[in-house]
């Protein structure tokens, strides 16, 4: 794309101020990027707890350009939140809430929707980060005054986080919020171009948007989007860290005693944004006077976000143990990236109820055990986690079929540690016996 070499206009007194007015163009371009990359990611992603992480890994490792497109979507959402906020600030600066009400309200709504989209999108890869962010969302909803219990149940789709919760976040992320964002964007575009259009202004917006896109595209070539270990394979030491647009919330929640988290994390920002949206009416009587309320809310937000974000960075850097653990996680992630992709086993419904042909693994082994121990009991490696092979396991002490059935019910009693977990609630005794009988036949 070509950019004009000469400045757009020499006669304008303050060129910087004019370029400051191009936040809308940047927001528009970033929204287009989110829509395009989001649609593409949906071609491979599967919203279910047993496949989400595998499909995102597949996008990262196997699909051509997958890593770049996912990085565009991931970092684009963070840049979008930043520019949506700057856009609100800029409109406030130019008193848009007085004479351009629709533009103002649309900007505040977009900010809310962009944050909602990012919040729901965070859960989708179902890695450790996603799981913890879902937990935090659950806690924030549950702590709301009056409606907390119901809000939590409705968000989760049940009493605990499950694959249903992931489906809900998926539907909210790819259908509900994009539709609302599209509606608001079209509304503001129609409104914008029904007024007298200053084309040099529109072009300035377009140039700014284009430049930001180039910067984002280059950034994403260098930095892939993070993907932590799968939610079910996470170790106890794992330290989850949210994306840049939620660091303020993460850091604030450290300072606030449990019960008040929802007030600070949801109610305060909600009331603040509501005040901003209602500013055209709140300031009706005093158009010329300084809208003190708006200033307080915006300055408060800006100060809050900047200080807590900086504090989050500093506290991670200062504590040597945290610093070390985060470095270890980064090393694990880059090691994981260089490992080959392992397909996830998938059983067709026809086969689920029956055992496969003689000599083959029982279907329930393939369903529950093969992911970690391999389809033929050969073991596997995920990141730095090594899953032991089961070959010749029958020759070891305390591994008779009866022992294995007990072990499946209570792994710690046999000295096994997570991620090996109890299958007492998943398998019947008979099913465990079937798996155990097959496992002891495995030979190197």
């Amino acid at each position, binding site marked *: 794309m070509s950019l004009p070499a000469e400045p757009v206009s020499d006669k304008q007194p303050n060129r910087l101020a004019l370029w400051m007015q191009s936040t809308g163009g940047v927001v528009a371009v970033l929204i287009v990027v989110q829509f395009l990359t989001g649609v593409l990611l949906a071609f491979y992603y599967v919203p279910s707890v047993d496949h989400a992480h595998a499909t995102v890994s597949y996008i990262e490792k196997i699909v051509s*350009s997958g890593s770049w497109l996912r990085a565009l979507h991931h970092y684009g959402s963070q840049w979008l939140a930043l520019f949506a906020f700057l856009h609100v600030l800029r409109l406030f600066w130019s008193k848009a809430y007085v004479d351009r009400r629709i533009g103002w309200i649309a900007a505040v709504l977009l900010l809310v929707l962009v944050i909602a989209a990012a919040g729901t999108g965070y859960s989708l890869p179902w890695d450790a980060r996603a799981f913890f962010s879902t937990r935090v969302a659950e806690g924030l909803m549950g702590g709301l005054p009056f409606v907390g219990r119901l809000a939590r149940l409705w968000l989760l789709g049940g009493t605990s986080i499950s694959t249903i919760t992931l489906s809900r976040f998926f539907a909210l992320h790819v259908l509900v919020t994009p539709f609302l964002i599209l509606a608001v964007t079209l509304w503001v575009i129609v409104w914008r171009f029904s007024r007298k259009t200053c084309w040099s202004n529109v072009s300035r917006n377009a*140039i700014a948007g284009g430049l930001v896109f180039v910067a984002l595209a280059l950034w994403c070539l260098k930095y892939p989007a993070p993907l932590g270990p799968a939610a079910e394979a996470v170790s106890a030491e794992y330290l989850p860290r949210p994306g840049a647009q939620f660091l303020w919330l993460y850091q604030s929640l450290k300072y606030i005693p449990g019960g008040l988290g929802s007030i600070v994390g949801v109610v305060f920002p909600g009331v603040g944004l509501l005040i901003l949206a209602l500013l055209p009416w709140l300031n009706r009587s005093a158009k010329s006077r300084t809208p003190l309320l708006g200033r307080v809310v915006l300055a408060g937000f800006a100060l809050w976000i900047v200080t807590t974000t900086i504090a989050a960075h500093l506290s991670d850097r200062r504590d040597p143990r945290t610093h070390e653990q985060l470095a270890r996680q980064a090393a694990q992630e880059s090691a994981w990236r260089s490992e080959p992709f392992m397909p996830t086993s998938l*059983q067709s419904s026809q086969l689920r109820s029956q055992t496969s042909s003689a000599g083959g693994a029982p279907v329930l082994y393939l369903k529950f055990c093969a992911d970690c121990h391999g389809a033929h009991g050969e073991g596997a490696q995920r990141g730095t986690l090594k899953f032991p092979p089961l070959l010749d396991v029958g020759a070891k002490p305390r591994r008779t079929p009866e022992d294995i059935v007990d072990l499946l019910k209570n792994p710690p009693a046999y000295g096994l540690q997570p991620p090996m977990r109890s299958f007492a609630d998943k398998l019947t005794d008979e099913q465990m016996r079937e798996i155990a009988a097959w496992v002891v036949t495995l030979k190197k």
Partner: protein
Amino acid sequence: MNKSRRSFLELLPFGVLVGVVGSISGAAFRFLRPRLSAAPDQWLDVASVSELSGSQPLAKKVLAEQISGWAISTEEHNVFVLPAKNQVLSPVCPHEGCEVMWEQSRNRFSCPCHESFFAADGSRISGPAPRGLDALPTRVQDGKLQVQYRLDNEQERATHA
């Protein structure tokens, strides 16, 4: 503002949009391009040769491991063994790909979709199917009849050629 400058300014936003959409589309083409997985020529056990006899086609099931993108699955396929001819027929109708069934009482295969009928040896009797049922590659290993399951022999041959 002169006219050419104005039209340039009007075109510029579209230029930026084309640039953004274009660069993502380039990646999208590679991203969405179907992955040609080399057909794994697995030999699948059908049955022991000793248990295959008679003049009737025998319905058997074979289990094939299939990798599709991120998923690995065990697919169950039906095949028909012709003990007399030592052949294994694919159940896939060469018309539109539905699976035929064996009608014992009328001694023929019938396709449930568009009423193609095939004789007990797989040859076409009537209906829209262009040819008889395809025979799959077979071999005998350690007393077991094995088969390579392919969805469409004709197409397979065409892509291999």
